[in-house]
């Protein structure tokens, strides 16, 4: 069977130009329009209820990650140097700076304002917990860390931050 290849000879040039221009405009609109109905609403800077840190949530590939970008008391009172992950049970990681530490990992958007399948790391005790994130409104997250089943856990409320202009 002979294969027929589609060439520009089959599409009038005027029509092809229209398609391309339309595609370009549509793509531009798609790229810059606010994506406030999907999982990307999680992206931003958030503050846990204790106010001790600020966490920037980003999207990498199809998953969401949060790293520490601000610490209320960034200097270790003992070493007089920037705080590190000294409570990590892995000795090799105890010298990793807390600033920039990825404490939220591997979240995927499940719909219905919920991100799940991720983990949260508590630098105060070096423990990693299963975690589910629920957005109660555009500026508030319920972050529930738990052990095994959700009922064995604790929920913290995070608030969205904006950089002052």
């Amino acid at each position, binding site marked *: 069977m002979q294969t027929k*290849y*589609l*060439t*520009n000879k089959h599409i009038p*040039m005027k029509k*092809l130009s229209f398609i*391309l221009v339309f*595609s*370009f405009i549509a*793509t*531009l609109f*798609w*790229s810059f329009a606010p994506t406030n109905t999907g999982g990307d609403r999680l992206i931003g*800077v958030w503050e846990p*209820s*204790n*106010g*001790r840190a*600020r966490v920037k949530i*980003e999207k*990498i*590939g199809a998953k969401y*990650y949060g790293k520490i*970008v*601000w610490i209320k*008391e960034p200097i270790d*009172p*003992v070493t007089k140097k920037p705080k590190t992950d000294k*409570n990590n*049970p892995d000795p090799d990681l105890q010298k*990793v700076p807390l*600033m*920039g*530490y*990825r404490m939220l*990992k*591997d979240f995927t958007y499940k719909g219905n304002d919920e991100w799940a399948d991720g983990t949260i790391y*508590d630098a105060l*005790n*070096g*423990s990693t*917990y299963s975690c589910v994130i629920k957005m109660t409104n555009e*500026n*508030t997250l319920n972050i529930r*860390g*738990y*052990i095994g089943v959700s*009922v*064995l*856990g*604790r*929920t*913290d*409320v995070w*608030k*969205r*931050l*904006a*950089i*002052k202009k």
Partner: protein
Amino acid sequence: MLFHSKFLPFTFVVAAFSTGSTIWAQVPENTDTIIVEEDYSLYDNVEYTEEGARRFCSPKIEGLSPAKLISIGYDYQMGYNMSADTLNSIQTGPGSFNLTAQDAQVLSSHGMRIGFNIPVIAKTNLVWQLGANYWEQRYNFADPASLENPMLKTLSAYGLKTAGLSTTLFKPLNDKYFLLFQGSADYSGNYTLKDMMPLNYLKYSAALIYGKRPSELKQWGVGLARTYRVGEINYIPVVLYNSTDTRNKWGTEILFPARAHVRRTINSRNMLFAGFELEGQSYRMWNTSSVDAFQMRDDELEIRRGEIRLRMVYEFSLKEFIWLSIQGGYRINYRFDMDRLINGEENYRAFGLIDQPGYVMINNLTNPLYFNISINLVSP
């Protein structure tokens, strides 16, 4: 070829815009370490996006021992002597009393201790937890067949049990001040599953504390409690003082007079405590189904048990969230006396300042060493 070559650059631009956000957001695959340099000073000066949002203080401070969600333990007191008094009471029901005082040797007293504490609401401006617990104390006498005193006989046959529900509310008022409420209802006595007491014998305890959390390393508070920790009902002032030093090596965990401990943090998963706990409850003498000559139901008798436990505690993580707690110490008897309620009314004595009515049995216990071990699932 799909498009004419002169459209190729244009096609690339379209494709770039289509996938642009993904391309520009790519970072290395390793998600543990942030490689991309970033100017973190950007995040020094921020504000809430939500109008009216406020900061509230946390119920915890840094360095505190982890809260226990589930605890299963065993408590063991070594041998001691129990001197049971005569019963100075009026029998109004059927049966007859053996009023003889008697000394008995307790080889050990021991029992399971199970507790649950589950967070129900955890909002920034309100934390609410519910708990349940079951403790039992069994008395292993040297010669049970020789027991004649009715109190000794019922302790030997049934021991003492407490089943309770508790609730804790933490209400931050702002980023420094808070209110803490703890309440519990305890079902305590010598009942068995086959012979349960009416629920109106529940004992209610509560404490309300107004506190301040001036820093991440300290919180304190003062308040008032209604408590049975010394055995009988009392209304007492309470002081909360939790602290951690800047090196996170030493700290205190104090809710005086219920408990007070100095904490030595070896690391975040190994902690040593020295201090005391005041432990007690009021136990309804209910079960008489197979113990003759002690018809207590008509006399409304309760054992007021209060003891001070001087102790050392070592708590450590066995694996991740599973912690073991081992404690040993000296149990000092504060009170193990029998009270008679008149028409169900509590006798309030204000730590002995009010001496009437007197106890119907004044019993003496010598003080043994004790040990306690528990395995715990700790809270995130």
